[in-house]
């Protein structure tokens, strides 16, 4: 790997889009090294990126608990958790730097939970049999993000990073095939502007909002990565999306989002449904022997801590059988009565107090008294832009980090690993690997006056004009809801060929209707939230198709991708390593045209492909 001389670093300019864990940590670390950084986010402050929503914790193989943890074990758990659909090399590197992240965050003043002796505390999380999760109450994502943000603002204060809040990336600009800039829209003034640099880093998060209802922030979108995809970047494994098992159930048409309840709750909560179909008795009236603790029954060794995909699917199964609880019948109980009896209310309050309060606020039910009701919801997307070991996409100069890339989680992500990956990429991987590209490409001092920028700006402006000109009758939001319903129905927790083909008919039709009937009020040259939303929904309407193509192509069940045709007799996922041990990377061929599939075979040299069993 090539390096850039410290004195020469100031000649290089980098654009970082997104200021979540990956973006903020990368922007700060690159600036510390001496690169000139421009950072962009659509939120009003870098601190509000959606990494802030992560609750449970961050993994590292510190082995502070002396329970036999090691870098190898973290690596293996992550590969296995991902159902052997991720690259060994990337995952091993991730496990290697995980410990450094904890040290870095502590040095920044992240107030991780401590034991009385003053040492860092750990909790256990789904998919692992060691206790390796570091946490800061139920706000770990917030605290880690504020740590990365504090490093970022320090560099902004020093003038080494120029920050552009309320600015949304609209397009990627290529010069001679290299990513050398972006076109953005200033969300306050509506102005379209270009920014040039020697490299572009996308840290724009996941596309879970393709389902409309998800645990993600309402602003989260696919636009930045989708624009890069349209410029030639490959999109890898789009169908690998995680459905989180513990969210507050859906309650009505008006609903704008689903609220996550940290998975850590499964440490002490027991999940159950009534044994009888349609049992309408209040939970406290249902006697013990009429309850089905289905996770404990099916997966005795992991029990309530079974990985997310398995827990989610099991919840769907029991609800589909008609044993779901709550007004909609789509919910299962997460019961703390035993834990409260065993540990006392005080301890439970200490561990989960803020989560219980949040639940109480939203549902008006007190989880200390009645069991919580939970149901799975779209939460994280393992798929993303394809990157090489250096986190660079197939477009030279375009780097993709954090949730926006596909690299480390395979077909399913373990709890507390998203924070780990985002920060690993930003603090410890990209700052080294980007120098390799710089050293090869050289500092080019590109001007935004070039024709490539003009052309991209014109395209962006034309597209906005086109959206504004439709002047139909339906809001972008209503289209988003309909798209979400299609995706959840045919491409959600369980998929089959017929459904996916149906989705591939419905999506283009909906897209056509959108471009005929969407209604956007206000002006383009002004703050305009309906226009922002419409632009994002328009991209989701195109993106949804590659998602469905990918799900259709992958004729196996692995991790979060469950194809009903491919299951064992007792309903477990059946993986097909012979045919599908590859990364599916899709290349754009035009709107409405099936993208071209490229396969990156996955070679496992250090782990043995095993059937993932949590029984």
């Amino acid at each position, binding site marked *: 790997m090539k390096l850039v001389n410290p004195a020469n670093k100031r000649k290089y300019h980098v654009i970082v889009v997104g200021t979540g864990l990956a973006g903020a940590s990368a922007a700060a670390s690159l600036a*510390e090294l001496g690169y000139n950084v421009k950072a962009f986010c659509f*939120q009003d402050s870098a601190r509000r990126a959606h990494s802030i929503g992560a609750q449970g914790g961050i993994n590292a193989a510190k082995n502070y608990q002396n329970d036999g943890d090691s870098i190898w074990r973290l690596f293996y758990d992550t590969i296995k958790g991902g159902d052997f659909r991720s690259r060994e090399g990337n995952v091993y590197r991730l496990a290697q730097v995980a410990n450094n992240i904890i040290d870095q965050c502590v040095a920044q003043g992240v107030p991780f939970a401590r034991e009385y002796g003053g040492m860092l505390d750990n909790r256990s999380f789904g998919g692992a049999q060691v206790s390796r999760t570091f946490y800061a109450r139920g706000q770990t994502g917030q605290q880690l993000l504020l740590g990365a943000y504090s490093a970022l603002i320090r560099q902004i204060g020093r003038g080494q990073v120029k920050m552009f*809040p309320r600015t949304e990336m609209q397009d990627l600009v290529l010069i001679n095939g290299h990513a050398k800039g972006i076109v953005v829209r200033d969300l306050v003034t509506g102005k379209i502007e270009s920014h040039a640099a020697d490299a572009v880093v996308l840290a724009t998060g996941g596309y879970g909002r393709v389902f409309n209802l998800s645990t993600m*922030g309402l602003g989260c979108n696919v636009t930045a990565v989708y624009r890069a995809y349209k410029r030639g970047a490959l999109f890898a494994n789009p169908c690998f999306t995680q459905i989180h098992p513990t969210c507050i159930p859906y309650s009505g048409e008006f609903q704008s989002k689903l609220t996550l309840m940290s998975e850590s709750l499964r440490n002490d909560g027991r999940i159950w449904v009534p044994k009888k179909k349609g049992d309408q008795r209040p939970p406290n009236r249902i006697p013990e022997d009429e309850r089905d603790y289905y996770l404990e029954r099916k997966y005795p060794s992991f029990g309530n801590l079974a990985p997310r995909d398995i827990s989610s699917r099991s919840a769907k199964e029991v609800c589909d059988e008609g044993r779901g609880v709550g007004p909609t019948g789509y919910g299962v109980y997460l019961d703390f009565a035993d834990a409260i009896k065993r540990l006392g209310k005080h301890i439970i309050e200490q561990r989960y107090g803020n989560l219980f309060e949040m639940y109480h606020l939203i549902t008006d039910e007190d989880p200390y008294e009645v069991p919580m009701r939970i149901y799975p919801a779209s939460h994280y997307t393992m798929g993303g832009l394809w990157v090489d070991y250096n986190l660079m996409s197939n477009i030279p100069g375009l780097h993709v980090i954090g949730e926006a890339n596909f690299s480390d989680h395979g077909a399913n992500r373990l709890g507390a690993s998203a924070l780990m990956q985002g920060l690993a990429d930003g603090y410890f991987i990209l700052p080294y690997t980007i120098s390799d590209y710089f050293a090869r490409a050289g500092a080019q001092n590109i001007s935004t006056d070039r024709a490539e920028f003009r052309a991209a700006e014109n395209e962006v402006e034309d597209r906005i004009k086109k959206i504004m000109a439709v002047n139909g009758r339906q809001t972008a939001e209503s289209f988003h809801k309909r798209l979400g319903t299609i995706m959840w129905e045919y491409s959600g927790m369980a998929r089959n060929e017929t459904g996916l083909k149906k989705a591939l008919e419905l999506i283009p039709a909906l897209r056509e209707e959108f471009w005929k009937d969407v209604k956007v009020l206000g002006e383009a040259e002004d*703050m305009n939230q309906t226009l922002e939303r419409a632009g994002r929904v328009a991209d989701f309407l195109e993106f949804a198709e590659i998602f469905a193509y990918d799900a259709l192509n992958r004729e196996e069940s692995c991790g979060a991708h469950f194809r009903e045709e491919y299951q064992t007799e007792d309903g477990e996922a059946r993986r097909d390593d012979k045919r599908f041990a590859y990364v599916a990377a899709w290349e754009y061929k035009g709107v409405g045209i099936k993208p071209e599939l490229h396969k990156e075979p996955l070679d496992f040299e250090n782990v043995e492909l095993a059937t993932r069993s949590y029984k």
Partner: protein
Amino acid sequence: MNLTLHVWRQKNAQDKGRMETYQAHDITPDMSFLEMLDVVNEELVAKGIEPIHFDHDCREGICGACSLVINGIPHGGKRGCTTCELRMRNFKDGDEIYVEPFRARAFPVVKDLMVNRSAFDRILQAGGFVSVNTGAVPDGNAVPIPKTDADRAMDAAACIGCGACVAACKNASAMLFVAAKVTHLAWLPQGKVERERRVKKMVAQMDKEGFGNCTNYYECEAVCPKNIRVEVIARMNREYLRALPKKIE
């Protein structure tokens, strides 16, 4: 239930702005306040009126984007609750609700109910960090931190930077926000190295941004969605007094 809303509408920073009255129909108790506004906005769009603009993102009370002064109280007056978490079951049929943006000279209105809170970012830029570069740091367990200190640091670090404290303060003072950060870092050994510099720089920047002075009304703590107590302000005052005679760079 049906409600009457009086909402501040302002086209942009230059516009003078005014209150407008809208009706909200068929609101259910499980809706959040923002979902209620979504419903109103859908109706407005159908009528060809530009929807009400407001900041929001996570809708679960952690990102700090949502704001709004509801009936004169930032985040609507339910303790420990942001606007996005506030449920309509806290209102009743026929209620009149006033919805205004956070008001402070340091928070100019961007549009309708959106304000510019970048002053907060600049205050933190002045010193709300530990000057440590990525890399050369000791092991996370190298410096033991008493559990109670870590817990109290966490209490203060819970701040989401929403700005409700400023909006509620009769003086539009940012003391609770600034003090939360100073206190968070003051409880930790990592933060102690730069404590004098931090408190002086942050107070200087806070003053420069045009926030008011703290006169101990304690309104801020009443509306803080993360229940941050005014003891953090006392702590910051102490830090400030401590730093006063010391020379910083």
